[in-house]
Each structure stands twice: as structure tokens, then as C-alpha cells.
């Protein structure tokens, strides 16, 4: 039985379709209802939906054999897993954004609001700028407007949300897309099926 952690949301749906097209269908998952785990005993696969940011921990700790999540999550939590494939979907970038016309107040710590604490720490440690980090869980772009922070570090897709809030990207940190990841030990004992999935999805991507 192969355990697969899928990220809830649009990305997850897209990814599920890829898995099914690759031959690992699971009719049960399309039935309405509030179930969380879906199994197809026949082709020995079990899917479950988790928060995108939880996929990595499920895979790292072996509760899932494989899973799909954004590169942002891999950079933030640095799980000890194999990163088998770039799914070339869920494409965006990690960036620093600030109100238009922003200038850095050099005489005090820069206040940075973000969901991505590790990425932010690492980024500013590399430039030597002292920061006062403000961890938020959502709507990061509100922070500079309400003077809670000077700048934000967040995922930027189209930039529309930023523009709507009079913010602009002042620095790109890293590009992001979805990745297929695998638990290292699972891979040793289930390499056949995991590799088959990888290959099949890779083909789908190449064809697309």
C-alpha cells in the first residue's frame, strides 16, 4: 500500500488528476462526503488531503510515502526527503515587497511580516540587515498598510494582490513550483511503484 499526501486546494486537485492519469485512480475520492482518507485496495494506493504546509512533515516522518508540495514549504522546513520531480505547476516566487516609495530606515531594525520565518531569517542574515520579525498566518499584505511592519516576505504569483494594496516587489528571493517528494526509507522498500509514478507524471509534464 502506497500512502500519498496531497495538498488541499486547487494544486492538489490538479496533482490528483496527474496521479489518476498515471494509473493510480481512486474512485472513492470523488464521492461527496467528509472523508479524509481514500483507498483503492486494488491498485494499492491510499490518498489523503492535508494542509499544503503539512505535506512535508507527513512525508518526512513516513506517515506518507510520497506527497506533493510547493518548493516554498521545502525551503521553509528543510525536511529530509527526496525531491523527485518538479511538477512545473503552482508556479510563483518568494519575494520581499514594500509600500511604493519605501526606503530602508537604517538606524533601527527592519520590521518584516511573514509566514516564512526560516526563509526570511536566512535571507536577511545573508545581507547582514538586522530585522524584527513579525510572524503572521495570513493576509500578510495588510501588515505594511497598517504600519505593523515595514516590508513583507511572501509568495507572489501575479502581483495583483500587491498592486491592489499599493505594494511592490523590491527583491526576488527564489522561484517556486510544486514538487513530488518521497520519504527516504519508503523509497528503499517501495522504489518500484514510486519510480513508476514519477516516470508517468514526468511524461505527462513533458507532453504538456
Amino acid at each position, binding site marked *: 500500500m502506497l500512502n500519498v499526501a496531497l495538498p488541499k486546494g486547487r494544486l492538489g486537485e490538479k496533482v490528483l488528476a496527474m496521479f489518476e492519469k498515471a494509473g493510480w485512480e481512486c474512485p472513492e475520492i470523488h464521492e461527496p462526503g467528509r472523508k479524509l482518507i481514500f483507498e483503492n485496495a486494488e491498485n494499492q494506493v491510499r490518498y489523503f488531503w492535508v494542509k499544503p504546509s503539512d505535506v512535508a512533515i507527513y512525508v518526512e516522518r513516513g506517515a506518507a510515502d510520497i506527497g506533493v508540495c510547493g518548493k516554498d514549504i521545502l525551503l521553509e522546513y528543510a525536511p529530509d526527503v527526496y525531491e*523527485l*520531480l*518538479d511538477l512545473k505547476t503552482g508556479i510563483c516566487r518568494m519575494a520581499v515587497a514594500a509600500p511604493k516609495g519605501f526606503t530602508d530606515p537604517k538606524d533601527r531594525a527592519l520590521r518584516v511580516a511573514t509566514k516564512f520565518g526560516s526563509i526570511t531569517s536566512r535571507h536577511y542574515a545573508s545581507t547582514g540587515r538586522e530585522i524584527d520579525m513579525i510572524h503572521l498566518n495570513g493576509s500578510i499584505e495588510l501588515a505594511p498598510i497598517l504600519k505593523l511592519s515595514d516590508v513583507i516576505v511572501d509568495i507572489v504569483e501575479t502581483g495583483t494582490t500587491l498592486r491592489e494594496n499599493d505594494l511592490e516587489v523590491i527583491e526576488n528571493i527564489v522561484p517556486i513550483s510544486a*514538487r513530488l517528494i518521497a*520519504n527516504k*526509507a519508503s523509497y*528503499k522498500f517501495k522504489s518500484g511503484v514510486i519510480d513508476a509514478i514519477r516516470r508517468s507524471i514526468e511524461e505527462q509534464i513533458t507532453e504538456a
Partner: protein
Amino acid sequence: MYIDDSIISKEEKIIFTLRALYSAAGYTGYRMNKFEAYDLYMRNKDFLVSDGVITFTDTNGRLMALKPDVTLSIVKNSRYESGHTERLYYDEKVYRPARPGDPFREITQMGLENLGDIGNGDITGVLSLALQSLKALTESFVLDVSCMDLLSLVLDEMNAAGDTRIALLNAVKEKAVHEIRSICEKNGIEKCDLLLSLLKCEGRAKDVLEGEALKALCEKCEAALPVVENLKSILVPLENENINLDFSVQSDMRYYNGIVFSGFMEGIPSAVLRGGQYDRLVKRVGKKGGAIGFALYLDLLE
């Protein structure tokens, strides 16, 4: 001495079983009976499994470390004698967080080290003991073996140096073929193929050593041939079904060279055994000779 099973723990039973195994193979027990200065670990920071080290100030004002590891102490206190090897095993309490951010724990670590003028026979011997150790613990296991020299050589052929090399090594570690491609493209590295060929040489050692993928690699890169031959001479005598070749297994190149390996047991989500040749560490600490060894993380077996 006969000891009633009721007064020893599961962990102690494993320890005694392995001590008997290592002792029979000519290894003697090593006991780390004093602390080392923090500097020793600090200077070889990346050799440690974990970043966190408990530091304390000794009564004489010196900053000491509470054993995060045993190997560094063994290397530091070893004495090289030309033509000889020192064979030591240990079981020690070491102190580190289970994962980054977790609280510090006391963990029992068991391992062995073979230092001095080591040859291929010694390497085969250590690999054999790693296999026997895993077998003593479970029925279903795998020992993944890699060869850092071969990986190094391929990277050299590709002219991958500095940050590019580090990025490629990380991608190899994660089997992230897409990252390898993208790094090569971004940095104008042409022989990307060579590294991808190497990664394809993955699977049961027996099969891979005789297989097409490896042959293909050697054709593309002649310099690889003697390294591969050497690898064969180490692995073939083992005749073991549980050995995989997997070049994504790595250890820090500033310390390790040659053979490195990881052991996995079914049902345990991370490697329970890790080891390799660390001649470079020996040199950094200012000693002569080579070394190979491995450690078992008994806390994972709980």
C-alpha cells in the same frame, strides 16, 4: 557472566549483541571518559549529525562540549603507526535534539571506527559488519552504498566548482534530477548528462556493478574506470543481496571520501546506520592515515 533478561533493557541487549559481533571481528571497546573542548567540535561543525551542541564552562573557565559525537574524540586521541590499524567500537551516551528545534536528549549511539593504514580489505570488513549489525536487528533492511570519489570525479569532469558544486551535491542528495538540469543550464555546465548517468546507476549492487548504466558512464568518462574497478573489488566479496548502490548517499566532502553508506530498516522512516571513509577529517585534525567507521542510532529503534 549470565544476566537475567529481566534486568536488561531491549537497548542493552542490542548493545551486547553488537559488542560480541564487533569484538569477534577484532575490535576493542573505547570509552570516552572526559569531555572535549567545544573548539574541537566547532572547528569540525559540519561533521556532526546535528547543529545543536550543549556547551558548558568547566571549572577552569574553558568552554567545553557535552559529547555530541564520539568519532571526533576517537580521531583526536588516536595515534598513527605506519602499517597498523586501530579497531575500536563504542557505545556512548551522546546529547543532541532528535530534530532541529526539539529539546536536547540523551541518546545511546553505538559504532565502530577503523583507523590507520587501511586498505580495501578493511573497507569490505567494515561494510560486512554494517550488514551484520542490521541483520541482527531486523529481517528487512537495505544498505545503500555510494562512492564519493566517483561523484567527485564526475563533478570535476563537469568543471563544477564553488557554489555550483555545492548546489549540485544538494540536488544529488535529494535525487532532484530537475534541479540538476536547471543548475547546469543556469551555470553553463555542459556535461550535465554525466551526472545524470551516474544517478541512473542505482539499484541492487550486484546488478548495477554488472549493468549497462555503469558501463555507459565509464565509456563517457574514462577516468571513472579505475574507481569503478576499485569499488567492485570492495563490494563483490560481500555477495550480499541487501546492498544497493545509490550515489545520492553522501557525506560532507570536507570530511569524507571514498565509500559512504546508510542503512535502512523497514518501518523506520530514516536511516538507522550511517558511515563512511573519513580520511579528510583525520587530516584536518592533524593526524596521519585513513579511517572508516559507522554509527547506529539506537534511539530510532524505540
